């Protein structure tokens, strides 16, 4: 009994220590999320009043039958898949290159060059990219012209807008995925590779059956991070395209924000809840698949 009381009084310190953290989490995390979910069940015009009118799933039905939202959701998913693949492929490729024995010097320089954009304020980076793509100011088309290559449509063309922001976002994010691959590569078991070499494995076989399986943790982490990252794509759209041209880059976060700006709170928060569910569902699925590890 005294021991239990002693434990409790010792625990009191921990409640005190956790209190500010818990307060912030509740005040600026849980409460807004619940509020957002609550608002998604109310009529927009009454959403901010003390006694809002509840409309059940009407906002969700409205959103799910809104063709702009469905197109936006489809765009978001397509962009996410393309971005995850492009970023991870680039990051893995560059990490392997930096880890190989081929580069004897300059390793730190290459690493810094690729990672610097990660800590560069995204607004600043995307502002520069926006103008790099510009037809009259931009360096990109000037360079293409110099090389005698056809002009790149950049942000103003329906065909190239998605690709343009994908490149700018890759520039900003890929360094982060790269250092995770590098960290994973540096702790791998090199004895296994030597053994494989002695057994006569080709370079490809060594990569495919010895090294790649060991990179599984980094692959899972990077996939989950990149999925969450690109599903939420927002800043790049605000800075570079405002959803255009012709809704080509009007992703869910941006569309929801626009509705919010128009005081369509119910629909905006319904979209937020739908996106939240997708983020959680996909992340959990990715972890689940990653955990289902054969032979370990």
């Amino acid at each position, binding site marked *: 009994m005294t021991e239990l009381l002693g434990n409790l009084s010792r625990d009191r*310190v*921990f409640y005190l*220590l*956790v209190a*500010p*953290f*818990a307060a*912030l*989490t509740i*005040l*600026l*995390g*849980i409460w*807004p*999320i619940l*509020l*957002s979910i609550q608002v998604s069940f109310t009529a927009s015009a009454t959403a901010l009043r003390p006694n809002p009118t509840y409309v059940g799933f009407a906002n969700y039905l409205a959103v799910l039958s809104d063709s702009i939202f469905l197109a936006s959701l489809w765009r978001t998913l397509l962009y996410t898949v393309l971005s995850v693949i492009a970023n991870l492929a680039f990051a893995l490729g560059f990490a392997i290159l*930096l880890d190989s024995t*081929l580069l004897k010097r*300059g390793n730190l320089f290459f*690493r810094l*060059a*690729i990672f*610097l*954009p990660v*800590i*560069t*304020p*995204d*607004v*600043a980076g995307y*502002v*520069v990219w926006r*103008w*790099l793509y510009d037809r009259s*100011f931009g*360096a990109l088309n*000037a360079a293409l012209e*110099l090389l005698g290559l056809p002009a790149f449509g950049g942000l103003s063309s329906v065909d190239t807008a998605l690709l343009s922001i994908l490149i700018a976002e890759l*520039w900003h994010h890929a360094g*982060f995925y790269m*250092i*995770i691959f590098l*960290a994973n590569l540096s702790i791998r078991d090199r004895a296994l590779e030597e053994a494989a070499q002695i057994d006569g494995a080709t370079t490809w076989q060594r990569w495919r059956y010895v090294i790649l399986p060991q990179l599984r*943790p980094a692959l899972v*982490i990077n996939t989950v991070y990149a999925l*969450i990252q690109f*599903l*939420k794509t*927002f*800043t790049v759209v605000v*800075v570079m395209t405002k959803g255009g041209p012709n809704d080509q880059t009007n992703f869910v*976060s941006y569309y*929801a*924000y626009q509705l919010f700006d128009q005081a369509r709170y119910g629909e*905006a*928060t319904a979209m*937020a809840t739908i996106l*939240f569910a997708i*983020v959680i569902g996909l992340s959990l699925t990715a972890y689940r698949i990653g955990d289902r590890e054969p032979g370990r």
Partner: protein
Amino acid sequence: MTDGMRANRLLQAAAYTVAIGTSLLFLYPYWWMLVSAFRPTRAIMSAPLRPWPETFSFQIFSEIGRIGGVNLSTYVFNSLTITTLSTLLSVIVTALGAYALTRRPKAPGFGLIRYGFLITIMYPYMLLVIPVYLVMFKLGLLGSYAGIILFLALGPLQFFLFEQFFRKIPNEVIEAAVIDGASEWQILTKVVLPMAMPITATVSLITFLLNWSQWFPIMVISRSPDTYTLPVALLSMNSELGSNFQGIMALAVLTTLPVAALFLLAQKRVMEGMAAGAVKG
């Protein structure tokens, strides 16, 4: 043997070409931004690729001395103050919280706090900011520094780095202190905190870099440009019609340079810390 060596040489040359080429492509936007900040808008339009400015003058920084009716120095001051204070608050609150949660994972309510936090960081950030606006309104913090700083104090990376560190402290170390009759407060201040200095430095550095870049919560919680930071000012300047291109580039330089310099000074700590914080997630 010589054939093999020649093939290796070729492979090496290819590896260097790819590595150098990609690195220069990644760095070019910085160079272009820097050069454009020193060139008149008309000069850039006629020769966008010119690798250095025609003349070298800091005139532009006085031209953008006022943006959106607010002094440039105010934005600089806001950036420094908001970033520094939110970093301090974030490190203190998260360190203590993560410490309590790792020392007593089974204490009633602690699991709930941890899950609540994990759910919060899964929520699409920019969509969380919107209901946060309503909460700030209810708390009367709209348009205040306090509201901005409080919101910027919560971050996943900070939490994971501290949690990971506290989990690695051997139980024997704590038990030895308990046997010596130390109170929990003494254990924290005399045993744990001294050990946690390096991780605290890493987390502070990374939080500073991350919070310096923040813009959306600051824009939403602000009631006027008086509480804007550099990235927010840059965004509003960039959204203006017929904007001053040279001025935008100069402001982008001002927004980027401090964190780029800080990162280059402490690159090892930042890259290792960010990788470690993610691996936990």
